[in-house]
């Protein structure tokens, strides 16, 4: 966790330094491509990067607190606030161009939306998700209505207000950059300082409350953090898409790690990277809306994480499932061969020239394998040195294969006997039940199985007990 924080600090420092440095000091090609030469573009890039970092941090808490939809309600509820703040500003000062005023209005109605959600939840029997759905759409609808009213007002200068809907990075100025940097620094400090408190709250609220932590206050703090990131990000990404900036980096990070601290650091990294790349892409191709490109970039990183995540990723899971399937097939082959040879009597010879080749057709019947499937299974066993030949007439085990076959059969039968004796499963059904689990039994479980079964204490000649049911 500390390492993650360190990386973040360096990242923040570099980003700030990059924005402050004069154009001349960045003359290498990398900078001209990624940061571009234009001062304003660089300002935008650094701002969106910082915004991504802040969003990743705040979003991680939101995701783990299972409040993603709450973030969505909050961001949509900011729209009427923006428009109302604009109307007030026009009325009292004559111009509605002050970003600070607009985002204050956004924060007020955003939080108001959250309060309404909480009120609905505590005063009625309407469930959480329904309450958030209602608040989200009603506040957003109100915002759209107000927006159309404002646009028909005689005072000019409403242009740009609708950019809050979908986001527009080009209009960002130096003051916005400071605002976004401030938000990023605050989320970083809050994440580090309240790391343990937020982790406890997200994991087990009831326990936290029983210990006297003010969970409501912590929830409010968390919500304020989300509000902060949301309102400073509104201009760049827009009301509709800002939730993606919060949730997607956090969800991506979760695919890579099962540690809270690392998840925060990675979410900040993913958020920063998507802000940087997304804004960069939209700057390279004028006309592309930055907010949407940023979200799509974040989504691309998410898909990558979904596929390549080391533990939960699709690829890793497919590989694991395939390996298990191969192991099950291999064990079925070995036990099939053992059972065929066992027909000549208990404790059969399994390997050596005196052992007859087992015809393919006999093995196919053992497991209702198609000839093609069986060939594949045998070929893989051959590569592992378990099967001696791949003869046209049939199959024969190697010494290693023979040992493995005896062991596999023994485990299967021990498990069957255990099920018959302890789980009251009829001997006619036990084969299938044993089949379902025996392949994943570890060595420790097998030892316990042996200890609990008297039959394992006085084994047959080769250690393999007789099957508790007739073998088909």
């Amino acid at each position, binding site marked *: 966790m500390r390492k993650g924080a360190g990386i973040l600090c360096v990242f923040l420092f570099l980003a700030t330094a990059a924005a402050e440095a004069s154009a001349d000091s960045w003359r290498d090609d990398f900078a001209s491509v990624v940061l571009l030469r234009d001062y304003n573009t660089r300002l935008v890039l650094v701002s969106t990067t910082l915004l991504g970092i802040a969003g990743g941090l705040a979003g991680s808490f939101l995701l783990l607190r299972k409040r993603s939809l709450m973030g969505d309600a909050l961001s949509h509820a900011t729209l009427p606030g923006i428009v109302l703040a604009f109307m007030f500003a026009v009325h009292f000062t004559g111009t509605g161009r002050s970003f600070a005023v607009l985002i204050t209005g956004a924060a007020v109605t955003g939080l108001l939306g959250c309060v309404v959600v909480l009120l609905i939840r505590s005063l009625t*029997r309407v469930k959480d998700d329904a309450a958030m759905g209602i608040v989200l759409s009603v506040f957003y609808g109100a915002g759209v209505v107000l927006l159309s009213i404002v646009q028909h007002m005689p005072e000019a200068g409403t242009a740009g207000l609708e950019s809050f809907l979908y986001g527009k990075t080009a209009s960002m100025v130096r003051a916005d950059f400071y605002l976004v940097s401030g938000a990023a620094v605050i989320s970083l400090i809050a994440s580090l300082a*309240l790391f343990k*408190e937020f*982790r406890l709250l997200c994991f087990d609220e009831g326990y936290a409350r029983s210990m*006297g932590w003010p969970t409501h206050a912590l929830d409010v703090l968390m919500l304020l953090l989300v509000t902060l990131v949301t309102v400073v990000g509104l201009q760049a990404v827009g009301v509709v898409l800002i939730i993606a900036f919060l949730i997607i980096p956090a969800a991506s990070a979760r695919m890579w790690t*099962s540690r809270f601290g690392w998840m925060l650091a990675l979410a900040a990294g993913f958020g920063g990277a998507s802000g940087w790349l997304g804004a960069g892409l939209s700057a390279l191709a004028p006309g592309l809306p930055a907010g949407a490109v940023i979200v799509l970039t974040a989504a691309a990183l998410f898909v990558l994480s979904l596929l390549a995540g080391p533990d939960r990723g699709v690829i890793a899971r497919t590989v694991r499932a395939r390996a298990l399937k191969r192991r099950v097939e291999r064990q079925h082959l070995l036990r099939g061969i053992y059972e065929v040879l066992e027909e000549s009597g208990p404790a059969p010879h399994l390997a050596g020239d005196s052992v007859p080749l087992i015809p393919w057709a006999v093995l196919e019947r053992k497991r209702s394998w198609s000839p093609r499937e069986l060939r594949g299974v045998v070929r893989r066993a051959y590569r592992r040195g378990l099967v001696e030949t791949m003869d046209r007439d049939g199959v024969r085990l190697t010494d290693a294969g023979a040992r493995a076959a005896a062991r596999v059969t023994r485990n299967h039968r021990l498990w069957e006997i255990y099920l018959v004796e302890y789980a009251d499963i009829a001997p006619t059904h036990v084969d299938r039940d044993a089949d379902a689990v025996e392949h994943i039994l570890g060595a420790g479980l097998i030892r316990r199985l042996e200890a609990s079964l008297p039959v394992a204490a006085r084994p047959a000649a080769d250690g393999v007990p007789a099957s508790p049911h007739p073998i088909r």
Partner: protein
Amino acid sequence: MDQSLRERPVARLRGAGSVGLPEEHSPGSPLSVHDLTVAYHRKPVIWDIDLEIPEGKLVGIVGPNGAGKSTLMKACLELVPRSSGEVRIFGEPYRAQRKLVGYVPQRESVDWDFPVSVLDVVAMGTYGRLGWLRPVNRRCKGLAMEALEKVGLADFAHRQISQLSGGQQQRVFLARALAQDARVYFMDEPFAAVDAATERAIVGILHDLKRRGRTCLVVHHDLATVEEYFDWLVMLNMRVVASGPTAEVFTAENLRKTYGGKLTLLSEAATAVSKEAGGAE
């Protein structure tokens, strides 16, 4: 350690003296409940609960589904709002005595896919001692490790919690409460759906806690083991049917009162009350 805790008189003196408690609350009792009623959406879940638990006992709380066992526990810990009544922990309200109480919630109450390690979860038991803003330090982790050893999960310290079996998860929650080093423990169904090894481990821990003078309140389902595990029994079905030494109150008559027949009337009355209140609004 044990002695120093026992001799600490703060709670008793304050409880007996200045506050002017009703006489029903004995200041020495680890849990004293008076006239407690809790309602969800106007429907009473527990009614007029009066309890006086002696110190140093293993207390079983039994009753049918929906009898309000968990609710009673949560109401004592101020996790659900009370409609009326008072709860005293060693003579003081809960909020003043939190450090003396360890809570083991139901296993299903959290998401076990959460990104933390076993050690992280157990170390949460020491957060109360740490206080605000201070990061989890070596000492906390040491205490957490000791607690994990007590429940037999030291080897699992660095596993992610989703990799544990149900029984192991239950032991992790128990270890977290042990790391708190409390004087009275509230355990919500620790024996629910656990394997035999976990059940033995939990019983061992209960006896160890009793030996050290701690009080344990345990919501329990398995009537077959009640007499073996608990020396004090609270039989609950919306109200307290019986509370006392297990040998005295665990009778056929009380079981019938708790689980069978007549009390359905009470629950019907509660439903009627909630309808009445709902209609009146």
